[in-house]
């Protein structure tokens, strides 16, 4: 069974304006999929639906065997907490908490905060020595690595990354992509949303969305 399965998924605002229309796709366990497309194509809407932050107006979304169309907002919150690790383009770190505390917040709302485990997650992205720094004291690349560590801390079944290198320079982009490669090699399932072809090409497979519809897909040559 696929880890994620979307069947005839549509998202219409006011019943008329379709952000997504008849999306059918699957993501297998351990797969790295890129959703690509120009701005306004519906990538973020698709990511919000897959990330349990929004509900499709029609169609079915099954994540890890759970049909997301049948759950309420409270259950969506629980699923988001238990199944998804999110990486944002704008990092979204809490400005008054240190790097390690930002990771512990995710633990706190999931189960119990464990500083040692949070430090280990920071170590994994090469930032153990920056654990006590506030986001304002970290570079963009470092903030994104903290964001990745936070996404990993609760052992999610799916890592969702929205334009993960959108705000990074080339060197930091390389660093972040290396981390994704490591995670993929370890068996994590990753879904990146990007408009940048060079980022999309890093994934095993890319689904191209245009005007809310799947316009095509391409697999990476091994």
């Amino acid at each position, binding site marked *: 069974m696929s880890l994620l399965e979307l069947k005839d998924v549509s998202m219409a*605002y006011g019943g008329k304006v379709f*952000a997504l229309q008849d999306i059918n796709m699957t993501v297998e366990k351990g797969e790295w999929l890129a959703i690509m497309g120009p701005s306004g194509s519906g990538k*973020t*809407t698709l990511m*919000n639906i897959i*990330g349990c*932050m*929004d509900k499709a107006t029609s169609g079915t979304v099954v994540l890890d065997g759970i049909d997301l169309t049948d759950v309420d907002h*409270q259950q969506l*919150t*629980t699923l*988001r*907490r*238990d199944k998804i690790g*999110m990486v*944002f*383009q*704008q990092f*979204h770190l*809490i*400005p*008054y*908490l240190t790097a390690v*505390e930002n990771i*512990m*917040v*995710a*633990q*706190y*709302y*999931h189960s119990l*905060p464990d500083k040692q485990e949070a430090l280990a997650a920071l170590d994994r992205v090469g930032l153990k020595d920056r654990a006590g720094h506030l986001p304002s004291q970290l570079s963009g690349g470092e903030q994104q690595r903290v964001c990745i560590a*936070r996404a990993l801390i609760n052992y999610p079944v799916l890592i969702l990354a*929205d334009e993960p290198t959108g705000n990074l320079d080339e060197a930091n982009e390389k660093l972040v992509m290396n981390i994704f490669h490591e995670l993929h090699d370890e068996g994590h399932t990753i879904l990146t949303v990007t408009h940048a072809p060079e980022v999309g090409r890093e994934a095993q497979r890319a689904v191209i969305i245009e005007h809310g519809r799947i316009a095509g897909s391409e697999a990476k040559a091994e």
Partner: protein
Amino acid sequence: MFWQMVKGAVVRQSRRLLLVALTVALGVSLATAMLNVMFDVGDKVNQELKAYGANIVVTPKNASVLKDVYGLDDTGAHKEYLNESDLGKIKTIFWTNNIVAFAPQLSASINLQNGQTVNLDGTWFDRQMLLPTGEYFSTGEKYLKSWWQVDGDWAADDGSNGVMVGKKLANDLKVNKGDTISYKKPDGQADTLRVSGIVSGGGSEENAILAPLALVQKITGLTDKIDQVEVSAVTTPENELARKAAANPKSLTMKEYEIWYCTSYVSSIAYQIEEVIPDSVAHPVRQIAESEGKILDKTQMLMLLITGLSLLSSVLGVSNLVSANIMERSRELGLLKALGASNLAIVLLILTEIFLAGLAGGICGYFIGLGFAQIIGNTVFNSSIAVNIVVMPIVAGLMSLVILLGSLPAIRMILSLRPAIVLHGR
């Protein structure tokens, strides 16, 4: 982690939370001041109203009421008197501390050398009484009739300083302070009274000679006798229970009786005076008692209104500040939701921050309010306001209510906050 987040948020938003604290402090300070004044205003207003004079008149039980009520003379009828020696007992009743002053009266008529008959009223002017407790109590007309204007000196209770003459009578007799008035004693012998001062107060004293009680008792031969006693007492405004008791104390249940007896209603104080002065009837002077109640009710209503309005303005202030805070932090709160925080957890986090700010403001506001209360007391009543400990829990409750009500719009915003919208749009 929760407290780390609260601490971080409080430190980071110290300026905005300071405004919340200031808003709460303002509301709480006004509420504290008004409530303390309100609880103490009863005594203060009562003290002010003491300027109106006695609110209880004690007369002999079987005395004819015709003279008191209709101004008719009771000549020929057997006249009853109270004993001067019983007056000390007034300061032994349950509400002894509420007895501000009292003065006995013994009225007589004397014939002057020119054949004119005038009223001669014996009373206490400034009497030092030794109470059974060993304390001294100063009482007399000087304390009871604070509005009297005396041109000259007050008469002395020991008779060493002559008598005072009412202004109107003094004009009729063409006497001034320092003059003497010649009169005939009941036995026909002539004697004189030295005028120490001319008194004016707008009452019956304007047409009388006011002499020390002992002198009038000596002239009339009524040793230790008095006609009536005027008593000024600090009282609690009357309510239904007091009115029921005033009509007939025996109609009260045991519990009602205890409440009434242990409350300083004018009727219960009058009742207790009757208990200690043998064969006496104590009449509350209704005009004074009712005025006290009405003025007090209106003053307290005004205080409550100001308290309510100040708290309402605090609610609106807190509401604006907290709503702005939530809008400013919408991404942060959206992130917490994206990480799996429930609405309840986020509401709890925000309320804790606001409550801590409100608590700090509330504590400051409480003490500032105590200061305001003293300013009001000294400005309006020329005396300090007693700090009522009951106000503290009331203010704490009101403060919590202000914070909760002020946070309601923000809570609504939190509940409707969608992470998909605030984090990266749809």
